[in-house]
């Protein structure tokens, strides 16, 4: 208490009494949320998890995990340690189909002002992100790759590359680098020949791939350490790394637009409370906090109306119309159809 007056004192006692009452009423109110770690989860923690915990008078415990595959194993084993998970839209879509995520109650969660196509029956969007080409500004200055073709062009941009150790978000850039126009990418990719064409393009780059990254924290670290000259990766991680001194820049041109969403695994211990927490986290006032910590756009458009996201900041977000118009939204139908096969082939290509 800064100034002691009768009023603040009385107020203090009152709030203390209320919070004590509140706490006892909500005793045991606790949910465990699993997310991707690194700077993204740091941002989520500061922008969403802890403020929401405080607003609701509950405890939000945080853990780090590796994606929907782990949820599947836990659900199958009947031991689900998480009440809420943050998954990529693809993982969410698969989880819905497989029945390992429970349906969300959209009477409770208000998505009336959400960006189109950023929620599923069992997974509600939280941020819009982009898979971008990023480069080391010490190596290339500000004139880095302007397109995926540039990313593949090791003569114009000599240096080492890092790409993902899974096919997710890799085949689309490969086709664009091979001259397929953005709006035709999924059309071409919708056949074995198309997938092989993309894989061949990656084979071409393979001798220059110094590291196959496996997590967002890793590709951010690779740029921070100057271990590679270019990498693919999730835009927000690079901005945080840059703020931390990394010499990194990225381009939204040809980037893949996607979103992360919150879901409740089947068998979660505190599913009921988890639903309320998700409803709270989906509110504009909380969503507006995320871009303050990492350059990911809110899925709730109303977040822009809160006045928390200023013009300069919003221009950097992957959901800003000026940026979005140069991007390719990730097509989950394609992933549902081809994920298994394409993943196998990608792994085969890696071990060649």
């Amino acid at each position, binding site marked *: 208490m800064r100034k002691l007056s009768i009023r603040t004192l009385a107020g203090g006692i009152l709030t203390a009494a209320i919070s004590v009452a509140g706490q006892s009423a909500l005793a045991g109110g606790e949910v465990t949320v699993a997310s991707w770690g690194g700077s993204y989860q740091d941002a989520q923690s500061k922008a969403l998890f802890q403020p929401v915990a405080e607003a609701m008078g509950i405890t939000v415990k945080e853990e780090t995990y590796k994606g929907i595959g*782990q949820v599947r*194993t836990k659900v199958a084993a009947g031991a689900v340690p998480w009440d809420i998970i943050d998954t990529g839209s693809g993982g969410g879509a698969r989880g819905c189909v497989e029945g390992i995520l429970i349906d969300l109650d959209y009477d409770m969660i208000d998505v009336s002002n959400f960006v189109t196509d950023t929620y599923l029956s069992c997974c509600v969007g939280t941020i819009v992100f982009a898979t971008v080409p990023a480069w080391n500004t010490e190596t290339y200055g500000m004139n880095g790759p302007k397109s995926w073709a540039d990313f593949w062009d090791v003569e114009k941009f000599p240096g080492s590359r890092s790409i993902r150790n899974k096919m997710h978000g890799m085949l689309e850039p490969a086709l664009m680098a091979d001259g397929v126009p953005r709006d035709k990418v999924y059309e071409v990719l919708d056949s074995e020949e198309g997938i092989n064409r993309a894989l061949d393009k990656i084979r071409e780059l393979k001798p220059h791939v*110094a590291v196959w990254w496996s997590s967002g924290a890793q590709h951010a670290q690779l740029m921070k350490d*100057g*271990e*590679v000259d270019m990498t693919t990766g999730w835009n927000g991680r690079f901005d945080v790394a840059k703020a931390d001194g990394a010499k990194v820049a990225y381009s939204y041109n040809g980037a893949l637009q996607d979103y992360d969403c919150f879901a409740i695994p089947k068998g979660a211990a505190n599913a009921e409370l988890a639903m309320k927490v998700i409803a709270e986290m989906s509110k504009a006032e909380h969503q507006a906090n995320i871009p303050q910590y990492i350059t990911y756009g809110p899925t709730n458009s109303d977040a822009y109306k809160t006045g928390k996201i200023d013009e300069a900041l919003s221009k950097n977000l992957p959901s800003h119309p000026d940026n979005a118009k140069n991007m390719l939204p990730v097509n989950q139908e394609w992933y549902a159809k081809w994920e298994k096969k394409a993943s196998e082939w990608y792994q085969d290509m890696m071990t060649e």
Partner: protein
Amino acid sequence: MTAPISPAHNAEALRRDERRERLLLFGLSLPALIMVLLVILVPVGWLFWLSLFNDEGVLSTYNYSRMLESKSYVRIFKTTFNVSFLTTLICVLIGYPLAYFLSQLSKRWAAIGLIAVLLPFWTSLLVRTYAWLVVLQRKGLINQWGIELGWWETPLRLVHNLNGTLIGMVHIMLPFLVLPLYGSMRSIDFDYLKAAANLGANPTKSFWFVFFPLSLPGLFAGITVVFVLCLGFFVTPAVLGGGKVIMVSMKIETLIDLFFNFGTASALGVVLLVLTLAVLFIAHKLLNLDKVLGSGGGG
């Protein structure tokens, strides 16, 4: 002197004692046996059982046939054995002289040396692995120093490949080789060496003809432990291999994580186990371990 005991009566008593002792020993080892049964045999059996079903849950050999058909599986097994072999070889090349040196020191200095060998054990494997990343990467300590001192101009590729994987694995595995080797070297009776010298052998000769054969049991024990542990390595190649060194354990993880394919993952585990046992069996026959162990054991 008491009354003479008939030899037959005595033998019967001895046999009874023996039976009782055997039963007692069996009883004492029962907890360990149950443990082995529960944590090894049952899961391995279950693994084998799982590997017999294809994606649709139908009994088939599909999980095994696809391993032969897909080149990537063959390549992954080759990588696994290659990495394990190279790690073991380097461990021997570094570890043997180290153990020899330690065995020649006074007990006190040797104890200090052994603590130095054991020290890395007290640090988490993960921490050590990431530490190597910091040391070996393009702008890491070694490359920075090397370039500053003018030893090389372009950064050496020390990590995110086979080099880094081997460095990290040798670092972790070395104590597993040095400890049994040191033990067997310590137990060598130095009178043998004196005898050899007495009979006119120079130090080189007495080392190769007397000391080295007597140290073999420890060496083989160390090699076996290191090689077998290497076959199942996961963290170090995953972190230091940069996605280029894919070992069986990593493939198993992908199969579960990405495809939820317990069948193929189990089949991989079974094949790795069988191959490991085969390697041990061949090594056993080839090197005639029993003889070596038998003759060296008393040394």
